[in-house]
């Protein structure tokens, strides 16, 4: 392996967790998946480990989400409710913001979202192009669209809440 995996771990693990967190929305789960991805990298010794980790992590997160969706069918989704939550105002606020961003992200197309999250996790345009199969020149265009939609969807979500509250 051309790169030292332990070094990549130090530099990439937090970014990978950040990336996976936006897919599974559970920090411990995201960390487990990231660990698992690194464990597989130890075995597979991929050529360019960094990009490989994100691909494998994303695949695992997808499987994980499917499994979670199956389990959820029988459960009532608990929505964060600022009036009933015992947490401090600030924490509640953070949680609400988080779920708003999550909702906004979910409105992007899978490709736009993937490119945006990969960029946010610190991958370069070249790495993103390699991973998504996009032409390098298309990464900027995709990012431009993804960012615009994210900002718009978030704003629209805020507006809806204001209307709902009256």
């Amino acid at each position, binding site marked *: 392996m051309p790169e030292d995996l332990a070094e990549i771990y130090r530099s990439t693990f937090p970014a990978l967790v950040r990336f996976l967190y936006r897919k599974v929305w559970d920090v411990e789960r995201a*960390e487990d998946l990231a660990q698992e991805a690194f*464990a597989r990298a130890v075995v597979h010794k991929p050529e360019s480990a960094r990009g490989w980790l994100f691909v494998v992590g994303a695949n695992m997160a997808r499987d994980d989400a499917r499994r979670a969706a199956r389990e959820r069918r029988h459960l009532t989704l608990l929505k964060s409710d600022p009036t009933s939550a015992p947490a401090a105002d600030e924490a509640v606020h953070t949680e609400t913001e988080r779920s708003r961003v999550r909702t906004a992200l979910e409105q992007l197309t899978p490709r736009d979202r993937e490119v945006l999250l990969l960029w946010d996790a610190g991958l370069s345009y070249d790495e993103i192009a390699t991973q998504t199969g996009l032409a390098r020149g298309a990464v900027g265009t995709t990012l431009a669209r993804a960012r615009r939609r994210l900002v718009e969807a978030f704003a629209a979500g805020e507006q809806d809440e204001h209307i709902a509250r009256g």
Partner: protein
Amino acid sequence: MSISHVDDGQLHAYLDGELPQAEAWRLEAHLGECPACRGRLEEQRALIARASELLALAAPPARAAPPFRPAEVQPPPPVRWPARQPLAWAATVVLALAAGWYLRGESPSSPVPPDRRAAGANAAAPRETARTVPPSARQTAETKTLAPVREADEAARSAAAAQRDQMISGSALPNPQITPLDQAARAKAAPPASALVAAAPAAPLAARWETIPWDTARAILGVEPVRIPNLPAVAKRSSAADRVVLVEQQLASGTVVRLQERPAAEGAPGMEVGASERLARYVGNLRVEIEGALPADSLSKLLELVR
């Protein structure tokens, strides 16, 4: 001016510092003379900032990265043999043959034809491990797995199988080993206490053991050293005084089988040889260790054949 106007994609690439130099110069030249595009540049800059801000809101709570656990199971630098992927299947078969032969109950004293005694494994796919055990009670098997066993169930199944097997043979038969990555599975598949031994820490094998000619190995043991037929093998010893022969065979890149053997009269090789975390298995006085990736079903397949 060479370009008319710039599109959003170029502006984003430019602001992200990802626009190739030549294109960046052209874009700057255009911005210099086009107030409309300068206005758009600032809009896009604000958009990027806002999107980053939103993503930051959805960042996971800050936590320290856990230690690099996979490093603990990282293999020592592999011996420089060519990868032998195609042999993976052959190795499984060899493994099965060897186990079958072993269970036939050869007497410990009978010399074993080298081509019949083998411990093998197969490396087509990562994770898990199977190993077997050679012949007569004068030999042992030990295995080590690098990759996590994926399913606790699978591990439990294999363990149960191994346990049954142990009752049949009445000797120390292996059961699957699970890396620290799957502690839960390990707990579930609690080993049948027998020959599962965690080896003491030591320097990497390759570093301390010198390669010796086969004739020397034969002279030490008095018999042909056990090895998997049709696989490149290297015989080693730690020192002239130590009468343990180590046979290293590479199944595939990343998968190494190590067989340690002492002259029959002297019992099993000690535990000083493995790295920490490495789990050892003994049958009689052969110590077998398989290191690397193995397909998950190798052991179950093997045990089925044996049964």
